[in-house]
């Protein structure tokens, strides 16, 4: 049996820094990695998300009517679900199913883009704070603490209410720019732990420039928690956008998002229950899919946590 080579052997350090030519040291056989159990939940939630995205993309083909057309304001106003209109019609005689299919486009794209924006900003902020540390970190973290304490909904409501009607791009920007605080706190914690690793020391010792260290060595190692947080964030933003649109300050008027359908029916839900029920179910199914996917992803990407949980 070979004696195991200590992990701090210089050849190994150089090799793992990715900068020096690989010297292929003699390695001890690695202990078998804990198998990444891809649970069924991961697959069905992913399939559901893919299905929802497909539906959103194919909305023009799938929708039986044009989403914003008033079909017959006299005869087809506020119709309960029927064969011709499976989800009923709203107070302007528009077909609810068609509106929901098109609404999926706005709801999903707002959520995905806003989360992409907040994940990017949050990651950059966390990387800078964690990498430079010291006084920079202290100031940035105090500022972050303050931002975390701002009631996000109230701020969004105030801004959107007074700027409304905002174009979709601005809506995405505003939601995205108020949602990165938690991501950056997460990233910074991860960066701090990565900074202690030896491969980082090696990269620094070799004089790798700071930007390259962040990009090539730090970022790839903190990516997993970012992905999980972003996935869980999508569900959150879908609900947030729905709430804002329910107040009439989200997506712009004739266009449908799942939330703005509520807004159009909010005067008389006692009589027109279908306007409240169906978009709500669509939101719940979508948000649940993203939340299940996020939790399953966390379990799959973090074997330690799962193993520890099972060992007890």
């Amino acid at each position, binding site marked *: 049996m070979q004696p195991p080579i200590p992990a701090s052997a210089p050849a190994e350090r150089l090799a793992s820094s990715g900068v020096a030519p690989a010297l292929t040291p003699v390695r001890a056989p690695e202990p078998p990695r804990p198998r990444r159990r891809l649970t069924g939940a991961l697959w069905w939630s992913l399939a559901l998300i893919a299905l929802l995205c497909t539906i959103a993309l194919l909305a023009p083909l799938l929708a039986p009517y044009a989403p914003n057309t008033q079909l017959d304001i006299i005869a087809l106003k506020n119709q309960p679900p029927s064969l011709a209109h499976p989800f009923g019609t709203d107070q302007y005689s528009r077909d609810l199913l068609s509106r929901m299919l098109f609404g999926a486009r706005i709801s999903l794209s707002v959520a995905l883009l806003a989360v992409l924006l907040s994940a990017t900003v949050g990651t950059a902020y966390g990387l800078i704070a964690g990498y430079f540390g010291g006084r920079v970190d202290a100031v940035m973290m105090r500022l972050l603490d303050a931002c975390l304490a701002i009631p*996000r909904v*109230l701020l969004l409501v*105030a801004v959107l209410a007074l700027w409304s009607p905002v174009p979709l791009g601005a809506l995405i920007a505003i939601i995205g720019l108020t949602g990165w605080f938690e991501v950056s706190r997460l990233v910074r914690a991860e960066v701090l732990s990565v900074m202690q690793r030896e491969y980082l020391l090696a990269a620094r010792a070799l004089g790798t420039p700071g930007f390259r260290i962040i990009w090539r060595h730090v970022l790839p190692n903190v990516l997993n928690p970012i992905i999980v947080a972003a996935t869980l964030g999508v569900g959150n933003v879908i609900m947030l956008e729905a709430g804002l649109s329910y107040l009439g300050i989200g997506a712009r008027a004739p266009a449908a998002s799942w939330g703005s359908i509520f807004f159009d029916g909010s005067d008389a839900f006692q009589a027109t229950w279908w306007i409240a029920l169906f978009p709500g179910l669509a939101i719940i199914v979508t948000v*649940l899919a993203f939340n299940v996917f996020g939790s399953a992803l966390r379990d799959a990407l973090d074997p330690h946590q799962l193993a520890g949980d099972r060992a007890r």
Partner: protein
Amino acid sequence: MRRYVAGRIVQSLIVVFLVTAISFFLIRLAPGDAFSFVGDYTMSDAVRNRLRAQFGYDRPLIEQFARFLGNVVRGQLGYSHSMHRDVGSILAVALPRTLLLMGAALFTSFAIGIAVGAFQAVRRGSWLDRSASGILLLFYSIPDFWLALMALLAFAYWLPIFPSGGMVDQVVHDYMSFGGRVRDVIAHLILPSLTLAVLSAAGIARFQRAALLDVLPQDYVRTARAKGLGERTVVLKHALRNALLPVITLLGLSLPALVGGTFFVEKVFSWPGMGYIAANAIASRDYDLVTGTVIVGGIMVAVGSLLADLLYAAADPRLRAR
């Protein structure tokens, strides 16, 4: 300890200042001002400009901000053009109502969350634990305003068990005895507070389950079992008490979300608190009232998380010693 408390108070003041600054600038930078929409649309430009000058809207933005800050510090939050009253006096009436709703929701949600989480941890891995996790994740995925709408439809219209909104019975409340009034408010409180509680309980239960699972394999729990204590005593007295500590931090962290949730739930149930007032203020483009609500909401969150941290410090012997 004193140093810690002082530091936390300073931090809260910074938060309140930031909230004030952010909401002030975002609102002043928005297109139009308080007088673009107020009153008669045929108001002449001369009159409009005189009003702007009267309220200081023609000054440089920095000067306006300094004046605004000075006013906020003195408790002057401006004038509501839609309700024709001082913003401070409107919010002074609305704030206790919101606090009542939030307090009831917070209490119920922690009670439900801790109980469910502890139950799950004790039965870890059983089908009850797994199905509870599934249900919690489902609740975690329900938008607050939608659950409020459904609760209203189901339990106030289809099965008229509860009143359909508001805080008191509009007609007979004033003629009731004291006990009757209390019962009236409670009847109106149940649906909105339960809606809020069920949703935030989902996160609390998850957290409590994890916290208890961290504690259960510890040596002192084994010691308690070895002493021959009943399982009930072991879990409730030895394990749960120590697993409650991290849950206190959740109290502070859940406040911003709770303020948001309360906002929507108040709107749906016409609960005449700050959220309801803010929603109406938005509809009538009442700038000062919207700004005032955001600032008071920020103060509420800041004070709440300050209290939660102090509570944590008081409950944690390690922090208390410092």
